[in-house]
């Protein structure tokens, strides 16, 4: 590990990880072991890749919000400690072929994953506008950089301590209209993704969301990170956020049914959809 520093409410870590840096595409995440040797924490923690840089053969940046013992341990690391990382993991954001207008919407530390995406979009001559929100000013991540990289950067806080008072979904319709958005990319809490997706549907603009589900393995073997997603065939399946995601088309995610097995999902109890077999 190279450096560690505080950024408002978050901790930013830079790690030398050439293998990950090299294969990284925007939307990827990594998993990190926490607690050191003999740790009582048996699962890895998922972290979005914030940035990759070519220094030292390839470094990777993470932004961490302390929410429990694992993230607290990560926030406590000092320069030169080593970290056990696996990645890059997951399905990256699909990129437009043409130079379209993209609105990048981030909530809390979810914004972190958008800057690598913005880089690539800008290289493809897309227009990039940001909408970043959080509960309070110190939890809005990357406002400065968004202002620098984006054509515009609209900020919202629930307490009004920075930008507009409210949520990103409240201001999104205005932004979409102003910038004549072709596509929306969003990363943040589920509630926010649901709101952003609803706006996308209303305006008939595709939304790519990067979801966050509790993960134990990050590589697709534990089956704990599932959510109901409608497939190309119209059938709802419980799919893994880590392997099939974390990026999904927003309108395919059944946000209202997260935390349940929808009765019409493939293999739902009662066997109502057993007819969908094979």
């Amino acid at each position, binding site marked *: 590990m190279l450096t560690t520093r505080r950024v408002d409410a978050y901790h930013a870590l830079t790690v030398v990880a050439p293998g990950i840096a090299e294969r990284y595409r925007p939307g990827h995440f990594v998993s990190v*072991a926490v607690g050191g040797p003999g740790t*009582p*924490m*048996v*699962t*890895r923690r998922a972290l979005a890749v914030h940035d990759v840089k070519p220094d030292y053969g390839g470094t990777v940046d993470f932004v961490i919000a302390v929410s429990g013992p694992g993230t607290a341990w990560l926030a406590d690391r000092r320069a030169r400690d080593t970290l*056990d990382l*696996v990645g890059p993991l997951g399905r990256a954001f699909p990129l437009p072929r043409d130079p379209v207008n993209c609105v990048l919407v981030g909530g809390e530390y979810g914004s972190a994953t958008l800057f690598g995406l913005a880089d690539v979009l800008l290289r493809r001559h897309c227009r990039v506008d940001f909408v970043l929100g959080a509960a309070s000013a110190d939890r809005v991540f990357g406002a400065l950089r968004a202002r620098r990289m984006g054509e515009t950067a609209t900020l919202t806080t629930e307490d009004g301590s920075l930008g507009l008072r409210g949520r990103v979904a409240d201001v999104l319709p205005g932004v979409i209209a102003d910038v004549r958005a072709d596509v929306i990319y969003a990363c943040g809490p589920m509630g926010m993704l649901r709101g952003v997706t609803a706006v996308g549907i209303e305006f008939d603009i595709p939304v790519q969301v990067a979801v966050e*589900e*509790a993960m*134990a*393995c990050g*590589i*697709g*073997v*534990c*089956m*704990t*990170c*599932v*959510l109901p997603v409608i497939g190309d065939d119209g059938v709802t*399946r*419980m799919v893994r956020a880590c*392997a099939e995601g974390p990026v999904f088309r927003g309108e395919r995610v059944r946000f209202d049914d*997260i*935390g*349940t*097995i929808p009765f019409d*999902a*493939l*293999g*739902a*109890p009662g*066997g109502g*959809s*057993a007819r*969908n*077999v*094979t």
Partner: protein
Amino acid sequence: MSPDGRSVDMSTYITHVELANPVITAAGCAGTGRELAPFFDLGRLGAHTTRSITMAPRAGRPTPRMTETPSGLLNAVGLPGPGIEVFLDRELPWLAQRSIRTIVSIGGGSVAEYTALARRLAGAPGVTAVEVNLACPNIEDRGRVFARDGAASAEVVASVRTVIPDDVPVVAKLSPDVTDIVTVAAACAQGGADALSMINNPLGMSIDTDTMRPALAAVSGGLSGPAVRPLAVRCVWQVYNALPLVPIIGVGGVTTGRDALEMILAGACAVAVGTALFHDPLAAVRILKELEELLAARGIHRLADAVGRAHRPPGSGSRHLEESSL
């Protein structure tokens, strides 16, 4: 290689079926096998165990499906999977093509369902052994888990054994949540189990003190990981002691080569790795390497010589039976 330069014979047997080495993946913890392929060649392990395959596709339980506990994991995943037909169509062939030794785990809600699953598996190419996951609720006994009842377990095993070809071992997977594991183990052996696998997850629970509600959507769930290893070692020890001729697959909290050796010394001839794969996708191959080194460092040249060794009084030596003066 051991200090004296000899390498360790790591091969082991589930009855007459030879495995190149004793380290296998635990049911439900290594996906379809494909997910681990980017990390290592599954063929390097003794065998891969599938998740428990069911007749119909299953969506499993709602989320949250897991929560961490001290040195453990509680899960209520609920045997999600595409059902036996898709398994035979798309999952087993992938494993068979790569010559990955495959132990197919099956789960059902009635003796008839287990039997039907076994019937579909009988003759399918690439089935090294069938593991009967007895930790499933018996719909004919008000949802009482088969594994909690020796007679019910034996009935399932006997029925599966009848249907599966003789050259494919049937392994009964037991749960520790019983008053006497030896009774259940003996009933299964009596019922025709060629081998036993233990332990499946003991039932545990955790409450979120912030929401003041159960942490899992399913309320309770199975405990796994290092926290349960002392229970698993105890079960292996007790059953090996009572039934020394029945091969045992030791499962529960194995994270290092030392943990694997502990299981083997207690009486397991193979060791399955589950939760550790979540923490380290390379866990199984690392454990295999560490185990081989530990055996070598102890001057043990054949894995078989270590099986159940902790039962022998100290000083009774490591001589093979055929070399003994008896």
